[in-house]
């Protein structure tokens, strides 16, 4: 008997040692979180959280997303809230540093006990908390980034995208160029991360034969002179700029200074005309040029968009948003497309919460997101079904006109982010009064 106990004990000890000293990367799958709960919901309030770059390198421009969202929530609260509950919108500053994002997200989930996350901003930042939010069972709605990774219902069942992803948008740009400027030589200028690679994947499907140059920039280096010169050398007539606003502006200034006048085609992330004007004047002033005709420089810029821009003053949603902004936004900066971006997110969130019922749980919120058509203010259909978490699924092609409404060059088109066809979008766009919480 004794001879058997000793090996058995040794084996058990070895097993214990092996499990306690297991590989650092060997993780076990936990059970799915319980969604039939409603933390952050009280008799008269619902707590919604977000992480945003309020300071740091990404703050100029993007800081206004949460200003816009807060204004809409304030408006909803003034009109009686959602099913009698006031929305408590908590924004934490992560300075666009993933390490901070992780900290503030845990704070939001564990200390603030938010009901859901809305519009966490940035690919490098939000990608680090997606697993955490899904493990904790926190609905992670309308991520503020066009990366493809938010649309993975199998892996991240609680994460939903918002803006049109970079590949879909680039496919629509590519097709427009191939059809309308078949003889043009095309150059790409893009950011050297997923924005660049995803956009290039889309463009290549349509303009591979017209492409004469591919240039990329690093967001840490503000000198785009070499890239713009290379595009000029290659005689590119069209420059597709998949850039953030600062770099769209830098590229345009650089081109102007070397006497290069290509047709710019800019993605939504970098085409906010009001922000661009501000940046153009600012950069020109830094270079000692105070009288830059910023608005004229943008005249003729082709861009893609999936929600109405601030210059479309006849659009009922823009009219409502302008009114809300005037009445409820703090600060005195002018309303921009970036503000509208946050306002659209908040509008969709309000709609989903309203449909989640009188006693919302996280499950009923997710059900509402699945069942409702959340297109709302958008110009293209919004995908938020069980199998497609892609958000806005296409874009319009527009042209900026100085001092006028932008011209729609091509109506809204939708597509997928693989090799699928591009088709005409069928949008049933509800007006603000049909959306529910706007009745006075």
């Amino acid at each position, binding site marked *: 008997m004794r001879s058997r106990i000793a090996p058995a004990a040794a084996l058990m000890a070895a097993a214990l040692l092996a*499990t306690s000293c297991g590989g650092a*990367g060997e*993780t076990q799958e936990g059970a799915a979180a319980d969604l039939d709960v409603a933390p952050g919901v009280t008799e008269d309030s619902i707590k919604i959280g977000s992480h945003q770059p309020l300071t740091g390198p990404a703050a100029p421009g993007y800081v206004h997303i949460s200003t816009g969202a807060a204004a809409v929530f304030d408006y909803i609260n003034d009109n009686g809230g959602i099913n009698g509950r006031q929305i408590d919108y908590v924004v934490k500053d992560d300075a*666009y540093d993933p*390490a901070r994002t992780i*900290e503030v997200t845990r704070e939001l989930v564990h200390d603030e006990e938010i009901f859901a996350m809305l519009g966490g901003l940035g690919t490098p930042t939000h990608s680090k908390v997606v697993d955490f939010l899904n493990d904790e069972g926190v609905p992670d709605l309308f991520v503020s980034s066009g990366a493809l990774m938010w649309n993975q219902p199998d892996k991240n069942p609680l994460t939903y995208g918002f803006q049109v992803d970079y590949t879909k948008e680039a496919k629509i740009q590519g097709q427009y160029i191939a059809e309308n400027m078949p003889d043009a030589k095309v150059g790409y200028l893009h950011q050297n*991360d*997923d924005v660049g690679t995803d956009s290039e994947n889309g463009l290549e499907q349509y303009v591979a034969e017209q492409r004469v140059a591919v240039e990329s920039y690093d967001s840490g280096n503000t000198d785009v002179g070499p890239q713009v010169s290379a595009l000029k050398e290659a005689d590119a007539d069209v420059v597709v700029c998949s850039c953030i606003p600062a770099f769209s502006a830098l590229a345009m200034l650089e081109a102007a200074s070397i006497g290069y006048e290509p047709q710019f085609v800019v993605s939504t992330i970098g085409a906010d005309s009001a922000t661009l004007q501000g940046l153009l004047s600012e950069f020109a002033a830094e270079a000692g040029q105070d009288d830059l005709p910023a608005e004229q420089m943008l005249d003729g810029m082709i861009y893609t968009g999936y929600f109405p821009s601030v210059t479309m003053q006849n659009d009922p949603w823009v009219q409502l948003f302008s009114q809300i902004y005037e009445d409820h936004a703090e*600060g005195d900066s002018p309303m921009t497309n970036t503000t509208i971006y946050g306002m659209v997110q908040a509008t969709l969130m309000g709609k989903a919460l309203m449909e989640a019922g009188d006693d919302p749980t996280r499950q009923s919120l997710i059900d509402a997101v699945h069942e409702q058509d959340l297109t709302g203010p958008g110009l293209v259909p919004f995908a938020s079904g069980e199998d497609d978490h892609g958000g806005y699924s296409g874009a319009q092609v527009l042209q900026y006109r100085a001092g006028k409404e932008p011209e729609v060059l091509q109506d809204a088109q939708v597509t997928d982010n693989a090799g699928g066809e591009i088709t005409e979008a069928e949008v049933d766009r509800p007006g603000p009064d049909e959306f529910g919480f706007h009745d006075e």
Partner: protein
Amino acid sequence: MVSLSDHESTSRDKQPESTAPAPTVGDRWRALPALVRFPLAALAAFAAILALTSVTGPTGDLRIGSVGYYMLAIAGLQLLIGYSGQISLGHGAFMFIGAYTMALLVLNQPALPLWLNMIITVVLSCTAGVLVGAATARLHGPYLAGATLALAVGLPALTVRYPELLGGSNGLAFSTRGAPASLAGVITNTQWQAAAVWGTTLIGLVVLATISAGRLGRRMRALRDDEAAAGLAGIPVGRTKVIAFVISAGAGGLAGACQAYLLGTATPSSFTVTLSLSLLAALVLGGLGSMWGAFFGAVALVYVEVWGEELAHALALDSNVANNLPIVFFGVLLILVILVWPRGLHGMASSLADLVRRGR
């Protein structure tokens, strides 16, 4: 930490009574050899951390863990700047190396245990320290600062150069094994992670404290005070400098590995020049020339921002002001502390303790 200060305060409490030459507890404590004293203090500190994390929530655990790895990085910097007198503006680069080593090991060799990953990290970052230290051994003052600054600016760009391996500017994300199954229900995953970080930090601190209390530490201080005199006294100037650089690089790398392990990510935007400068600012704020300075500096680095945010919230300020208040708060604190107590928070603590003692 807590228990260490307890020991000291016990000694102070008893001093006025013990007019007899009988040794007090504090004297006996200080008479212990460093190799016994530091590990004992570390064990007591570890117990205090375990006790502390058992009452805090997951966010608290994360912050306590952050204090841990920052403290290790700052302590390494303390050895370099406070003891050997060399200025490095690029310590974030070694944290970068450590964090990416840990991330790549976890992602590509998931079967390796955590302690082995930590050891590999230390070896790699020490190697980087040898290369940098040897190249910069002849530089001093502002030239060394400039060279290390270049390292901090340049190194994170590697991620963009090799996006397949290093994940580009979005960095790497991974998850690590939490508390072992046999401890389920006793401690949570976040507690386990905070304990693992502090365990590593304390081992690192024991090594650093032992070095600085021994011959090498004495040589470094001699070098700091007068390089020519130290050379004349037979101290190998160049070698001692490089050794100090290598040790502090190892501490920085280990701190980076702890950060990556704690947060489950390594991203270039976490390792900007701002991080290197923050470490230096925290070191000066905490106090140069004492390992306690590293502790105060790390606490300030993590908590001043939290308090600043709470203050901004309490004052209900305009959002433009409120967003930037935590940074301003840290800056004002730094300026005030340096003006009033040039030896930093550690200097403040000891002069307050002196006041109390004299007041008796």
